[in-house]
């Protein structure tokens, strides 16, 4: 089960595939209904960001284990324009799409761990992990 599974994100249907993959893996790992829904929502948001702002990229999912804990890690990678001001996009109330409550700070709160790395003109990588309770 240690293999990464990836979904290329180029259009809106790919978002659904990424969700589906995430839900299957979350279920398999033993996440409850609410956490399954949280993980898929996080995947949705990250995939949408790729689709809207980077054009294309991929969502990868991998089961992780650390100090006896099991979890699921989402890796969102794109080769888009990058994020100029990460602090700004991590601020609540700042979403370029104008949607209420959406955006990266929301994803961070849905998950247990969140790291973001972005280089201008080269792309963005986001890692988000949810641990089994």
């Amino acid at each position, binding site marked *: 089960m240690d293999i990464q599974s990836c979904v290329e994100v180029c259009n809106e249907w790919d978002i659904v595939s990424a969700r589906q993959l995430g839900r299957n893996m979350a279920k398999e790992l033993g996440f*409850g*209904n*609410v956490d399954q*829904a*949280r993980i*898929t*929502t996080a995947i949705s948001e990250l995939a949408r960001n790729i689709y809207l702002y980077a054009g294309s990229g991929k969502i990868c999912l991998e089961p992780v284990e650390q100090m006896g804990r099991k979890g699921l890690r989402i890796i969102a990678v794109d080769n888009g324009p990058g994020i100029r001001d990460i602090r700004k996009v991590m601020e*609540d*109330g700042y979403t370029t799409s104008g949607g*209420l*409550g*959406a955006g990266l*700070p*929301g994803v961070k*709160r*849905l998950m247990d761990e969140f790291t973001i790395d972005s280089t201008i003109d080269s792309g963005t990588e986001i890692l988000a992990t949810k641990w089994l309770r």
Partner: protein
Amino acid sequence: MNDRDFIIDRYKDLLTTYLNGKNETALYKGQQFSRKLIEQQISPEDVVSHHINVLNELFPDMTEEMKDAFDFLLEVMIGYGFAYREHQSLRTRQRQLESEIEVAASMQQTLLISDVPTVDSLDIGVKSVPAKKMNGDYFNFVKDDKSISVAVADIIGKGIPAALCMSMIKYAMDSLPEQRMQPNLLLENLNRVVEQNVHPNMFITMLYGLYDTDVHKFYYAGAGHEPGFFYKAATDEFEDMFAKGLVLGVSRTTKYKEYEKQLDPGDMIILLSDGVTECRTSKGFIERDEIVALIRENMHKPAQEIVDSVFHELERLQEFELRDDFTLLILKRMV
């Protein structure tokens, strides 16, 4: 048993009670319970999930479609959870900002505070109260050997930008000591500073005066400021202290005119900001005559008590809600 289990148990109890009795009491308890949920920061999708779990226990033969439908609801509620958590975090940030503003306001107070000078021949009283947290009015006294200079200023605009601008005015005035003896020149210099440094849509009105404690003359100049009052004890009359001049910051070349008043014992100079005259009561704006009447009523008191009494009365008339920063200042010649 942790909080989470406790909440599920309690929810189950409440729901069962309601399903058995279907009465208003149970619903009322449910409403009370929701407060507890909010207190514990339980998000909407968690509540739906508890509901589903409890239903599964209570009705084990629930159809698969029903269960699926609840899963759908759960998915929909995730969005509300998203928004709810953002709201929580924005609220925390709002509290942080408020406390930062408190700190800024108290810093402004310490920066701008001006000691009221004591001289035998003059009785001085001042009251300056901001409408919001930060004061856009400013007053300042400087005591020299034979004189006391006094400035009252008001920024057109309120709040933080006005307050920041005030700090600049204070330091600009401090750096113009040579002009202190000539009110019109001081305003001309200050006008240039404001014109160069302050945003074009921000204006400052000011009345600056110098009281000569030897000859008891008050020399003053004004830049579009609310006219003060001059009280002549001999005739027992109040007159307006007009001082013609454009507000600071409009044109670099504005000239100001100097005026003077001779004070005899018992005479008073009253300076104010437009927050005093633009008090809005249920009967409309307060008239300058009413301010004069209020001062007259309290005039037998020491200067500080006069300004305090006038403020309290105006505060009461406005139902304790100040709409503009308030500054009232009285200089009364004693001997």
